[in-house]
């Protein structure tokens, strides 16, 4: 039985929101199936074969996740997702080591769950430095080096940004953290399985991983916690003492198995998939550039995962564009905050002006995106951008050579 006879039915919109969530790979679902049905045991039950079998599934998955990031399987803890992993990593180390160190370094473009955790810790008396990013979305390593002190307990910098897909220089960050003896946590929700990650080579001490961003199930994630040298955490969830005491609660065996399988597939197919997606990304960008002027890619194009584009369409209101392109599922930013009309704080942090930030769309390409879908998406975007620009007085003025910024608007 296969619940995915087809990834997308023809009457459904084209899915281009792979940074929000990904469809589950049918191979992942297949691996999970027995654990939903006849291998349903509680992996913590030690008294019968149902329990042992479930435990076997969980431990195999732990190894698969570890392999993806060059870790030892003992260093992988299952959580309910990357949000929990980020909460646990940052709060866990901060609270455990608070008597010795009380300073945290992060960046202004982190995911909301990292920023909110840092704000919470500030209220608890920790000091937090929010590093700016450069125009291309990458941090300045010298600014980082200057920010880390002998009071810094953890540096939390995401591997790949969820809105603009830029890849931070992890190995260099890890090196600085190691020199300064601060722990390095990276939110790799958007990076794991997409770019090579090696906790040893990159000196990463804590890493957050999400299942549903890598074609695995929702409700499962992992936190890598270095054992040599050992890192201690105050747990967020206490109880039965599962996951080496770092995270209590019955492990959801099918979800763990799904994450493991997704990690294995991602590792195996990473190179081929990256090449394929790079072609699709170029096809999309070239297609748009060939037919539209005044479009702008937000964030560095070179240091970027191939499955992401974030494009500002000048003189077009993002909301209207989103409403217009009904055949495409895209977003104006992160899914968590996409219901609000506030411009993206990530784009603002790059120095993108508010009006331009309002015109930007996040386009996520992934494992099941086809050339034909990209072509259709380009056509649809071009058609709607042109239509909206045709109605825009600003566009008309720009075509007449008037510098929009020079206009002094009358107050109402």
């Amino acid at each position, binding site marked *: 039985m296969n619940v995915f006879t087809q990834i997308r039915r023809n009457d459904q919109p084209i899915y281009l929101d792979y940074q929000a969530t990904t469809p589950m790979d049918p191979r992942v679902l297949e691996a999970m199936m027995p654990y939903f049905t006849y291998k349903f045991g509680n992996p913590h039950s030690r008294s019968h074969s149902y329990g042992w079998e479930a435990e076997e599934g969980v431990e195999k998955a732990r190894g698969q996740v570890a392999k993806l990031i060059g870790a030892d399987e003992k260093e992988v803890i299952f959580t309910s997702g990357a949000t929990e992993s980020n909460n646990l990593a940052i709060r866990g180390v901060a609270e455990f080591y608070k008597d010795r160190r009380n300073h945290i370094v992060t960046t202004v473009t982190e995911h909301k769950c990292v920023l909110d955790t840092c704000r919470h810790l500030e209220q608890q008396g920790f000091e937090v430095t929010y590093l700016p990013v450069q125009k291309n979305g990458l941090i300045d390593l010298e600014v980082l080096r200057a920010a880390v002190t002998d009071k810094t307990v953890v540096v939390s910098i995401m591997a790949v940004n969820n809105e603009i897909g830029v890849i931070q220089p992890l190995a260099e960050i890890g090196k600085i953290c190691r020199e300064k003896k601060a722990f390095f946590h990276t939110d790799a929700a958007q990076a794991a399985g997409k770019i090579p990650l090696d906790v040893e080579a990159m000196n990463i001490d804590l890493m957050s991983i999400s299942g549903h961003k890598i074609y695995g199930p929702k409700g499962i994630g992992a936190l890598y916690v270095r054992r040599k040298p050992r890192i201690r955490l105050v747990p967020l969830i206490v109880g039965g003492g599962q996951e080496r005491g770092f995270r209590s609660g019955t492990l959801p065996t099918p979800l763990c198995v799904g994450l493991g399988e997704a990690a294995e597939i991602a590792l195996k197919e990473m190179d081929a998939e990256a090449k394929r997606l790079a072609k699709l990304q170029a096809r999309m960008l070239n297609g748009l550039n060939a037919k539209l002027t005044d479009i702008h890619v937000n964030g560095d194009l070179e240091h970027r995962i191939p499955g992401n584009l974030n494009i500002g369409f000048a003189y077009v209101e993002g909301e209207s564009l989103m409403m217009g392109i009904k055949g495409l*599922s895209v977003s104006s930013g992160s899914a968590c905050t996409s219901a609000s009309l506030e411009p993206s704080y990530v784009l603002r942090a790059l120095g993108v002006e508010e009006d331009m930030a309002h015109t930007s769309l996040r386009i996520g390409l992934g494992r099941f995106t086809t050339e034909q879908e990209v072509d259709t998406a380009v056509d649809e975007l071009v058609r709607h951008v042109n239509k909206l620009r045709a109605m825009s007085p600003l566009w008309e003025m720009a075509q007449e050579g008037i510098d929009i910024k020079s206009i002094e608007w009358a107050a109402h």
Partner: protein
Amino acid sequence: MSAPAYLDQVYLDHNATSPLRPEAFDAMAEALRTGGNPSAVHGVGRRARSLVDKARRQVATLIGALPAEVIFTSGGTEANNMALAGSGRRRVLISSIEHESVQRAVPDADIVPVDGEGVLDLASLERQLAASDESALVSVMFANNETGVLQPIADVVRLARQAGALVHCDAVQGAGKAPVDLHGLGVDYLSLSAHKFGGPTGIGALVVGNGAPFASDRLGGGQEFNRRAGTENVAGIAGFAAAAAAAQDGLAVDRLRERLEASLLAIAPAARVFGAGARRLGNTTCISMPGVKAETQVMALDLAGVCVSAGAACSSGKVHRSAVLAAMGVEDAVAETAIRISCGWNTESDDIERLIAAWHDLYIRVVQSDIRQVRAA
């Protein structure tokens, strides 16, 4: 997909985890087909959102709550942790038989004892509540995971209200097995876990009723009414809700249990059913086999194709002395011989007969070897 030969095993460990109900499986398959992040504004996201909304109504119905009172979590442990951290009350009273996810979340809590049947001592609760003016939170489970003994929650709420205290009820072992009514009981916080009654693992809920104070520390994207951040486990939520709908009427296994206990006591009249004098969940039997260690029983029964447990399934698999039986005043030598047999939604009378036969064979074997040893001496 072919099932392996051991499918003929009898599974009587539903309090550890219950197999997925077919309704839950179907609902999850539909949710997986739908895909999407419920926070996304496009059509795919909105469809995922509507699945979550529908599920929230179904889970609310199971326990007589309003949909907006239901916060989905990763399971019962997280729900318990969140309730105990989120009420804002520093003074906490818990029963002596709470699950570790309650005990370890409030290590400084006042412990309220239980009687020999495993029922909370209400007079003691009243005294302990009166011992301080500081407003408290009382946390008492709906039913115990090892004995199935039901706790007098309505009375707990009455006493707590008189003392201005809030009440949390860990209903992980009650919901879906017996009727649980949030507003009828009057509790402020209620914890649920899906996989204890045929939903999937990895999903549960904290229900905050009566407009009780609640501050969350699960920070991030603002999901679950800003009370529990993280992308919603849509398939898990859908499976949870479908299991809740299927379990609405609870379990009808009381008569199987009567048969089971009567038979085991007939085989070994000195065996003891713990909590037998109290109101219990209809699915749980905690029983001693005189002179036979629990580990021996569990292994022998497993070899005979019957899965039971020696207590709670948590932690690292070490066999601990049962804290629940100790709290009931059961002597160690007896507690060491207790196993837990828990039925569920797919338990049939044949399963019970298999257990009775296997338990009988083991007991006779041990008794006979004892007799031989006595004779040899």
